[in-house]
């Protein structure tokens, strides 16, 4: 027997005539839609920034697995890890850079192989040169170049410090030509990380510990690869999630807290639906008692109200999904449109004609708002929106079980 058939029939009729017995669920449905759309936009933008940062860190700096170079070699690492995308040896040097006018700034110089651009496509893809090239000298970030007023071809001085138990500390300045200015979009790198081909290091990296960076086809394969390396006798390897755990942990915490805060919308909407549906149950006491007298079980009557909840939840969640995805993936166009409109209004009003700038380059270190959404996040957010209505409907319909037909139907 198809019990759902008559439940759907009654639910659809009651849903259509809902306003006669109680307030409409329309505003609550709209609330779910707003919640889902807001969460999708917020999480999409947060993902965009976070994944952008993570990609920049992994592509330019930390790699997927880091292995101390002492006692091993790039070729040994590559033979131990079949299918690795790239492996190269580098040295990180923490120092100070001084421009021609004596203005200094802290800097980390990564001394990399001369062939890094050919050997590591991910590195080459991320190191977008704004001017000049990589390979003929020091490549500095765009923010450092701006703050020290450095241009391609300029000479800069870099502090080189070597310490030895016998000879003591030897600090001197090394001169390097700036061959290129890059921009990766991650402020910390653009302001404080430079790249230098190892053939031009002039001994800057002397005494520093070299590291082999390994790039994998799947970054989440790092744990297995570390096992492979250990099996091949290569010790001390560290995965990217461990090496960057403080930074990535902060990013995850930020996202989780934001998800919870915006997710409070669903609790508010759920409570709203709960109260509305309780009113609907009160408004339909006679009808509920009647269909129970005709043979409906309490659970079937609850299912009728659950259908209302499903309709409100699914309707709101789907509407929010559509709106959220449209807004999220067109957010730059929407900001540009608003900027153009406000600019036109300002011009017509006799102003300067300057429109509203959401992310002015003067204030923010971004040109465009990046957006990234995973299928599971979209599914989770949309499901949570729909579930809030469902749970509220289930709780609100609990009273149905307590409606006694004999008491209701005798007292007309």
């Amino acid at each position: 027997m198809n019990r759902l058939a008559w439940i759907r029939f009654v639910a659809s009729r009651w849903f259509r005539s809902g306003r006669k017995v109680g307030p409409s669920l329309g505003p609550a449905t709209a609330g779910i839609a707003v919640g889902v759309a807001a969460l999708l936009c917020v999480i999409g933008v947060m993902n965009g920034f976070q994944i952008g940062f993570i990609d920049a860190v992994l592509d330019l700096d930390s790699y997927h697995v880091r292995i101390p170079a002492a006692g091993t070699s790039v070729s040994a690492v590559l033979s131990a890890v079949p299918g690795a995308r790239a492996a190269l040896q580098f040295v990180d040097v923490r120092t100070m850079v001084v421009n021609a006018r004596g203005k200094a700034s802290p800097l980390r110089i990564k001394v990399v192989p001369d062939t890094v651009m050919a050997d590591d496509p991910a590195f080459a893809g991320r190191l977008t040169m704004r001017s000049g090239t990589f390979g003929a000298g020091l490549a500095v970030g765009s923010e450092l170049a701006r703050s020290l007023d450095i241009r391609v071809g300029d000479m800069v001085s870099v502090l080189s410090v070597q310490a030895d138990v016998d000879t003591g500390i030897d600090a001197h300045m090394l001169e390097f030509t700036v061959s290129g200015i890059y921009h990766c979009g991650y402020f910390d790198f653009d302001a404080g990380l430079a790249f230098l081909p190892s053939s031009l290091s002039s001994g800057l990296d002397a005494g520093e510990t070299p590291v082999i960076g390994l790039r994998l086809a799947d970054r989440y394969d790092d744990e297995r690869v570390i096992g492979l390396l250990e099996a091949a006798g290569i010790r001390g390897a560290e995965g990217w999630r461990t090496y960057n755990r403080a930074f990535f942990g902060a990013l995850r915490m930020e996202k989780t807290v934001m998800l919870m805060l915006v997710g409070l919308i669903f609790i508010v909407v759920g409570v709203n639906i709960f109260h509305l549906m309780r009113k609907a149950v009160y408004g339909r006491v006679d009808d509920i008692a009647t269909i129970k007298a005709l043979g409906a079980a309490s659970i079937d009557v609850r299912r009728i109200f659950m259908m209302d909840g499903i309709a409100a939840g699914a309707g709101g969640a789907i509407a929010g999904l559509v709106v959220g995805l449209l807004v999220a993936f067109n957010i730059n166009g929407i900001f540009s449109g608003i900027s153009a409109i406000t600019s036109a209004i300002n011009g017509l009003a006799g102003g300067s004609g300057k429109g509203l700038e959401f992310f002015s380059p003067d204030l923010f270190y971004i040109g465009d708002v990046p957006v990234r959404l995973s299928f599971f996040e979209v599914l989770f957010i949309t499901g949570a929106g729909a579930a809030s209505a469902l749970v509220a409907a289930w709780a609100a319909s609990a009273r149905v079980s307590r409606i006694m037909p004999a008491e209701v139907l005798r007292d007309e």
Partner: protein
Amino acid sequence: MNDDVIVCDGVRKTFHSAAEDLEILRGIDLRLSSGDCASITGPSGCGKSTLLSILGGLDSPSTGRVMVGGIELSDAREDELSTFRARVVGFVFQFHYLLKDFTALENTMLPAFMASGDRRDAEARALPLLEAVGLGDRLHHVPSMLSGGERQRVAIARALINAPAIVLADEPTGNLDRASAGIVEELLFQMAATTNTTLLVVTHDQGMAERAGRRFMLRDGVLLES
């Protein structure tokens, strides 16, 4: 008798309140056979509707045994009572209690739809019933577009759609004018006789009560057959 469809043995019902315990039914014994037409009369508040609710599985006795249509109601679970109400009994109340958002056809077919899950079959069974109660031209009218007598006729059709063994009618003409009451009364007795349904009517109308083959009076919580 093995064809008894309603069996009550020593049924008592007490309503508890903070102020007092009110015993409405004080040991009801009743047996009705298949096809019996019976009436119960008695003063207001004497417990007629309560007895009917107990027989219909809408209420439970405080003590005593109730077996209706071969089903022991005294200790039945809620789902068993729901199935019992859907398949064994049909109700006609003083107030029609039609679903206000549903047409006459939809109200009539709903119990069959609930029992079978087949809407077309339910509609096919509802149509001749509504024709039989003279509402063939009112199929798609909602209750607010029907007169009191017409609503009660829809309620009778609804009570009969699952071909129940028993129809329990609680003051079915109590809210109707004389002409409408006559039509409803005639329909109820005629259709019960045609389908060999056991009919138990609670009424204040002496004429209607005397039309039943077996007549009972409920007074001071005790049921007496006259």
